[in-house]
């Protein structure tokens, strides 16, 4: 078969995380014989999409660790305050003991200050707060996977679905674990399963407030005089399944909210072994049947909500919504109608099989327009740079910082809708990207030849102007900056 080097380069940028230096299958040359076949083959890599990192705990364990940590801290603070108050009280009473105590305190502080080599290093004197540590560990696992995987199509799908069913670290420390538990296992499975896993996950129940939603006529509702929170029910229908302004009404939202009352998490305060895990609490659940989107659901407890989700997952509106988003993410801001139609049909034909959806997307001729269409999202771009330059162990904190500066803070979406997939949303960050590119170039210029990076990252995709611009740069730093800013590297 004739080699299609340019098609190979486009394929790796569009469907993967960009060509990788030192790759076995993730290089332009390796996929040139059959770019489409190579992307499809990525779907069959064993364990693709999964992260196995023994350092990472379950979402519940992370949640409990933070809770216990906070509780212990609180106790510690309380003790110290008490001791101080007591010392003051005794000093006021003229007690010799208290004087000694205070003097001792002072001398130990003074000893600390006088320690000659104590570096004012916040990392050493102040341990990283546990939630931050958990965030960094989760982020490291995610970023390293993207930087080091071969083609990365499955990983790109993980990022897509994680953004579709987004949660925020600002709401819960479990946001990273959520992606591992609710998204990754189903990324090549069924949409219905991912939906069930996502909506019942403690991180989602906290993020969209369902953990505190109470059926007004439930036992707890009556006793506590509290009620519904519609947030999760609405976003499930508007964002996760049917799509905005489709087949549901406000009444459907309210009734759905009633259905999923009782979907909450075990409080950690009196569940040291299972706190933070999902629980269906019948005491909070609105009793009785509910009707929504034209169907009545008997009160079967937690199964009532599961049944609604199952139906939403198979609804034609959901198929169209998901198909449109998938095509928009990978192909074009305004995806070709025929492609959306094909994906919608495939969704309905396969019971929402996401692997089949991915295959259909990649096999569609509409997904292979000649030029590059979309601008890379900041996170994708930062990963692509490191892959092109052969950085296998990137500076995670640096990348997180850059990604936030570029408007896409990791696991902190601005709203439940997630980060935008419209190219226009990302153009404004172009000059910030330039700063970011410069920072990256400063870090790697000592280790790589700009020309090699052009060959790895773009190959024949590089326009003559781009090659010349890189070759004529006044320094390696400038050359690498311009290279990763070049349209062929910005776009996919």
């Amino acid at each position: 078969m004739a080699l299609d080097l340019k098609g190979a380069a486009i394929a790796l940028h569009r469907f993967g995380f960009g060509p990788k230096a030192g790759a076995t299958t993730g290089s332009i040359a390796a996929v040139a014989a059959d770019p489409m076949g190579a992307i499809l083959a990525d779907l069959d890599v064993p364990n693709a999409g999964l992260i196995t990192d023994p350092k990472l705990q379950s979402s519940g364990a992370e949640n409990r660790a933070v809770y216990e940590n906070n509780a212990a801290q609180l106790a510690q603070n309380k003790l110290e305050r008490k001791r101080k108050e007591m010392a003051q009280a005794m000093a006021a009473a003229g007690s010799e003991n208290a004087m000694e105590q205070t003097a001792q305190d002072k001398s130990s502080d003074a000893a600390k200050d006088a320690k000659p080599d104590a570096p004012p290093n916040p990392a050493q004197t102040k341990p990283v707060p546990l939630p931050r540590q958990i965030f960094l560990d989760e982020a490291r696992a995610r970023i390293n996977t993207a930087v080091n995987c071969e083609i990365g199509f499955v990983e790109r799908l993980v990022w897509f679905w994680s953004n579709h069913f987004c949660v925020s670290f600002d709401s819960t420390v479990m946001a990273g674990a959520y992606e591992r538990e609710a998204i990754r296992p189903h990324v090549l499975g069924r949409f219905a399963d991912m939906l069930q896993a996502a909506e019942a996950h403690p991180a989602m129940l906290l993020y969209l407030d369902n953990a505190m939603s109470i059926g007004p006529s439930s036992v707890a509702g009556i006793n506590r005089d509290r009620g519904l929170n519609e947030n999760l029910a609405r976003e499930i229908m508007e964002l996760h399944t049917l799509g905005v302004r489709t087949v549901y009404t406000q009444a459907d939202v309210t009734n759905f909210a009633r259905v999923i009352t009782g979907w909450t998490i075990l409080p950690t305060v009196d569940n040291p072994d299972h706190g933070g895990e999902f629980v269906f609490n019948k005491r909070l659940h609105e009793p009785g049947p509910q009707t929504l989107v034209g169907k009545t659901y008997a009160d079967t407890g937690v199964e009532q909500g599961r049944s609604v989700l199952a139906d939403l997952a198979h609804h034609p509106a959901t198929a169209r919504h998901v198909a449109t988003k998938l095509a928009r993410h990978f192909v074009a801001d305004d995806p070709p109608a025929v492609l959306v139609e094909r994906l919608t049909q495939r969704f309905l034909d396969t019971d929402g099989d996401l692997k089949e959806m991915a295959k259909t997307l990649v096999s569609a001729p509409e997904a292979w327009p000649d030029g590059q269409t979309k601008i890379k999202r900041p996170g994708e771009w930062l990963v692509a740079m490191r892959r092109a330059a052969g950085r296998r162990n990137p500076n995670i904190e640096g990348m997180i910082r850059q990604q936030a500066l570029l408007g896409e803070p990791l696991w902190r979406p601005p709203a439940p809708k997630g980060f935008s997939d419209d190219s226009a949303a990302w153009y404004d960050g172009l000059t910030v990207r330039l700063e970011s590119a410069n920072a990256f170039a400063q870090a790697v210029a000592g280790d790589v030849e700009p020309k090699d990076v052009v060959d790895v990252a773009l190959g024949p995709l590089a326009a003559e102007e781009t090659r010349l611009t890189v070759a004529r740069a006044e320094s390696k730093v400038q050359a690498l900056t311009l290279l990763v800013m070049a349209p062929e590297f910005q776009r996919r």
Partner: protein
Amino acid sequence: MRPQTSSLHASTRRELLLGSGVLFAWAFVPRLARAEGRDPRFLTIVLRGALDGLAAVAPVSDPDWIKLRGDSALRLDGKLPALPLDGFFALNPAMPNVHKLYQEGHATIVHAAASPYRERSHFDGQDVLESGLARPGAADTGWLNRALGGLEPSPDAVVRGRKVFAVGPVTPLLVRGKAPVLSWSPPRLPPVTEETTMRLLDLYRHTDPTLAQVLEERLGLAAIAKAGGIADKKPNDNAPGIQGGGIEQVRAYFAEAAGTAAKFLAAPDGPRVGALAFDGWDTHVNEGAVNGRLANLLGALDGAIAAIKTNMGDAWSETVVALVTEFGRTARINGNEGTDHGTATVALLAGGALKGGRVIADWPGLKEADLYEKRDLKPTTDLRAVLKGVLHDHLRVDERALAADVFPGSESVTPMAGLLA
């Protein structure tokens, strides 16, 4: 406190260096120099992008000078008059500190100098300049690093005693090599230069109109923000600013990087040999030698040299700073009010250890027949002679090592004598 390894993570390194009140017990000393009761410091600054030597130090009395450069020519009677040096040459008016040093005998200018490289590629030119070899791509070590080998040839020398000190996020080839390198990065990154931004815009204009338009708009906004005094907000010291490239940022970076290098070199038990690099000298378009972009950059460099002198304190009297660039630029102005890649240029030496106040030049002249390939200032001084002279007289690097190891194949290039006081 001494780091056990030179490959520490950058931020850790920074914290170590800034955090520990005590610097490292540097065993490295130029031993022969020490035996003479001296404690010399040597800092090399690489100016990447090819500095226009004629714009930095102009031959104002050369009869062909004004003809050659026209309105872009520095002159003693210009609106911004050049600063007189020796009657024949004059210094760019953006460099009053260097001018003062010159008058005090603490600055020397070598003109019409060049490395052995005779092509015009930046990367290859920098490679030759920093490797010390005659050809590009031939080495992955730098002459400054190898010079340390010349200082302490004994194989049982204490390893930690041979550290070279590098400033900046990228360790220059100049200091890479067997002798361990310790590097320090200023908390702020070198800003994206205006030159880089303009090149990117040019690339976008040729290849991607959408991105070109976006970048133009953003740059326009940045200019308005600047004019309106809207400050650059830096989320934290480690993060790049939102808008970059302003000359104030360049000034701040140059002064901070150079000033910090001086602090380390000045410390009684600090390193004695260091290097850093400043980018941005590739002035193809609107060079602005008198009051534009190049003048701004030279001003920032002048500030950096002033910061070195200040922070060196008493050690200034034992200091030599060498400022070198990969090659010069065309003698004539090009079609874009800039200059293209050329050959010979200036090397600037500054420091209290110098017998300065001199411009050293075997002036080749500026008539067309005098120019190298009828376009560039002709090289008449081998830059290696200057560097060998400094390394020999200042650090007492052995002359044989200079010819064999530091600048291999340079036996015929005699170290320039008499540079030091």
